């Protein structure tokens, strides 16, 4: 494995005893069979296995964070403080936010699907630094351990935003411990981002030019840029808060000449780009799902790819829209407001192009399409309400109300979580090698969509009527809407559990998927499902654009289906069919 010529060795396809490049015969068959011991998983450097490790741990944190949300929603059923104390309520929503943001949303799509798919999509055998990849998982788990410790030790009450001077001077919880947890998990993000950037630059297969990269890869490239450039700013900010708490540093303390608003600037300089860390990979997933659903070349490939980069850049310049009423200069606010409107343009470009791609496509109502469609709808609502919030005058009314809560949940839950489940349903046959019952996938998508809207739409109205966020004792006139929201949350909770039943079922009883169960294009669909340990027995040579579905002109009929069959190996002359 260490010499040049070994890397070129390719097995005789008819001789099952010929291992080729793999160390054992089983490795040649599937990465899942390359070792069954716990050790073979915990010490693996195979990007696909690390992706599975992440899939399991990220999903676990999703349910821990979900449990905290369930507590919050249960407490909000009544206007009094009956289930949780004030302190307890603050701790519940803080842990919900911290776990969901740093332990679910940020790593969710990149570290599972990005890890699994980027090498496959660009024709590489692994990420550039496989051991660093494993290290990033261990760092993630270490950060997770700290968080779980805080959870058991009693929690924090600052909110996920850690605003000073509450976090630095007044809060009684384990602020330093949580800061350490987030600090640690940040390094996992940085390592992953670094690995992706180097991989995309240096490990593309011959012929895989930048213009032939899949949109999923473009989105992850843009995300990685944010990961490596924004995360360290959060790290240093949290370190300063911890030092302020432990040693009375004074940087954020006006009594000592510091400036509490400075914290908000530093925090949002990371955290607004971070919201794009959460949503850009989802946008990449949806680009794939849309193209696969329509079985048509993507409309405006260059614009979708470029808009990911544009979002990454402009996203760094809008952080001030979180501080319109925090005493920031009016002129700064006006500029931030304008830039926040500008950042919506690339997002809009994507939505228009997806719609144009679907237009006259050969859409089959497969589960991934349902998730993609609900993503688009919810993302549009989330994005448009973002524009509403970016208007200075309107934000004075809506800031720190449930309207903001609804806005970001439409994007982060309606958007990113839908895309996460969409990706899971689309690539599950590739990852596990099995087909799941499609009808259940459709039902899950529909229930998630309905439950989601019932949960979060009432919150727009609540916010508009003036219900402040982070309160659990509220005016009784808001109760109806809160009860609706909690009812929706219980539907949503059940709907999120559904996929785990039939996906597990499929692992044992599902039919073998075959290399290309959806009949779509892309390098990952040219290798067996599940892929062999080394992905490609021979590095493919790419000769055509991505998404090269047959083009139809007005009046053409029937050709498309047959052509797709013969072409399944997307411009991939070298590999065996």
């Amino acid at each position: 494995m260490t010499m040049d010529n070994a890397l070129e060795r390719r097995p005789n396809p008819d001789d099952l005893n010929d291992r080729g490049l793999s160390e054992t015969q089983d490795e040649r068959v599937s990465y899942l069979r390359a070792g069954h011991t716990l050790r073979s998983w915990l010490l693996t450097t195979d990007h696909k296995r690390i992706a599975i490790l992440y899939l399991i741990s990220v999903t676990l944190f999703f349910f821990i964070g979900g449990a905290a949300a369930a507590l919050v929603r249960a407490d909000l059923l009544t206007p009094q403080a009956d289930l949780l104390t004030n302190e307890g309520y603050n701790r519940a929503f803080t842990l919900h936010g911290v776990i969901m943001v740093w332990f679910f949303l940020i790593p969710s799509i990149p570290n599972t699907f990005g890890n699994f798919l980027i090498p496959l999509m660009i024709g590489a055998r692994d990420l550039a630094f496989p051991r660093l990849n494993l290290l990033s998982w261990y760092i993630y788990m270490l950060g997770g351990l700290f968080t779980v410790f805080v959870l058991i030790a009693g929690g924090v009450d600052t909110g996920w935003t850690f605003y000073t001077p509450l976090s630095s001077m007044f809060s009684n919880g384990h602020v330093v411990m949580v800061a350490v947890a987030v600090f640690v998990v940040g390094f996992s993000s940085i390592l992953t981002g670094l690995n992706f950037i180097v991989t995309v630059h240096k490990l593309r297969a011959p012929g895989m030019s930048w213009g032939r990269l899949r949109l999923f890869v473009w989105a992850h490239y843009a995300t990685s840029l944010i990961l490596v450039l924004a995360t360290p700013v959060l790290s240093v900010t949290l370190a300063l808060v911890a030092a302020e708490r432990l040693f009375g540093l004074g940087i954020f303390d006006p009594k000592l000449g510091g400036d509490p608003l400075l914290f908000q600037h530093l925090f949002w300089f990371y955290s607004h780009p971070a919201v794009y860390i959460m949503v850009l990979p989802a946008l990449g997933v949806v680009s794939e799902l849309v193209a696969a659903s329509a079985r048509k070349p993507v409309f405006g490939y260059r614009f979708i790819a470029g808009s990911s980069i544009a979002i990454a850049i402009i996203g760094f310049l809008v952080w001030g829209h979180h501080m319109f009423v925090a005493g920031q200069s009016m002129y700064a606010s006006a500029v931030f407001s304008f830039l926040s409107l500008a950042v919506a343009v690339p997002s809009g470009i994507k939505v228009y192009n997806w719609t144009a791609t679907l237009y006259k496509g050969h859409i089959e109502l497969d589960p991934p399409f349902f998730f993609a469609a609900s993503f688009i709808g919810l993302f549009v609502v989330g994005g448009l309400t973002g524009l509403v919030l970016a208007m200075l005058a309107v934000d004075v009314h809506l800031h720190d109300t449930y309207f903001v809560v609804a806005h970001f949940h439409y994007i982060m839950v309606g958007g990113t979580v839908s895309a996460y489940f969409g990706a899971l349903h689309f690539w599950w046959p590739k990852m596990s090698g099995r087909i799941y019952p499609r009808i259940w996938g459709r039902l899950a998508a529909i229930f998630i969509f309905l439950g989601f809207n019932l949960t979060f739409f009432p919150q727009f109205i609540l916010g508009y009527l003036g219900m402040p966020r982070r309160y659990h004792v509220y005016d009784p006139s808001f109760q109806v809407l809160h009860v609706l929201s909690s009812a929706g949350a219980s539907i949503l909770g059940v709907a999120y559990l559904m996929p785990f039943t039939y996906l597990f079922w499929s692992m044992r009883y599902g039919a073998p998927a075959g290399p290309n169960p959806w009949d779509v294009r892309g390098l990952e669909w040219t290798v067996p499902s599940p892929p062999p340990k080394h992905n490609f027995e021979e590095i493919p040579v790419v000769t055509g654009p991505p998404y090269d579905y047959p083009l139809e002109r007005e009046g053409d009929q029937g050709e498309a289906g047959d052509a797709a069959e013969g072409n399944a190996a997307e411009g991939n002359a070298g590999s065996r069919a």
Partner: protein
Amino acid sequence: MSERIELHEPFSDAAQQHEAGMLGMYVFLGTEMMLFGGVFAVIFVTRALHPAEFVAASQKLHVFIGALNTGVLLTSSFAVALAVAFARAARARLAAGLLVAAAGLGLVFLGLKAFEYTLEIHEGLLPLFSRPANFSGPVEHLFMNLYLVATSLHAIHMTIGVVLLTGLAWRIARGGVPLPGRVALVENSGLYWHFVDVIWVFLYPALYLAR
């Protein structure tokens, strides 16, 4: 290149592996830059908020030691640059020697820094350590806090660099690093060292020369 270079799994040729290693280092240094960027932002904001007090506080620093340290670091970077050149030319012993020299200069830097800290402790100027501390006002206290945060963060990076260079020199001297085959290792360690140096080149004026 005569000797065979060890290729790691995803790479199919040596040039690709080399470039990937370099790019990885550059990206990592970009990350580090943003980390220090946060610190610099805080320094500049504090200066903008309290220009007069900030300047007054800066005047109490030992600018001479800072200047000396800047010279020491720049010299060490020169040694590292030479080491890289010799490593490319497969002059292993010379390269190892120069790396040791650079690491030694790094130790001189850290020693001078420690001496400076002790002076400040006696003057009652170093937060956390001076007892009793005597600051003329809150801004001076804040300035010295920032000074301690920034310089100790930098010193941590220096320490890592010294360990890195010494370890590398030792491995080269023992013949564990075939040259010029694995020159990437020397180049990457060198990049890191230059980076830490450059950070100081900006910290020095931001703190000492702000008078």
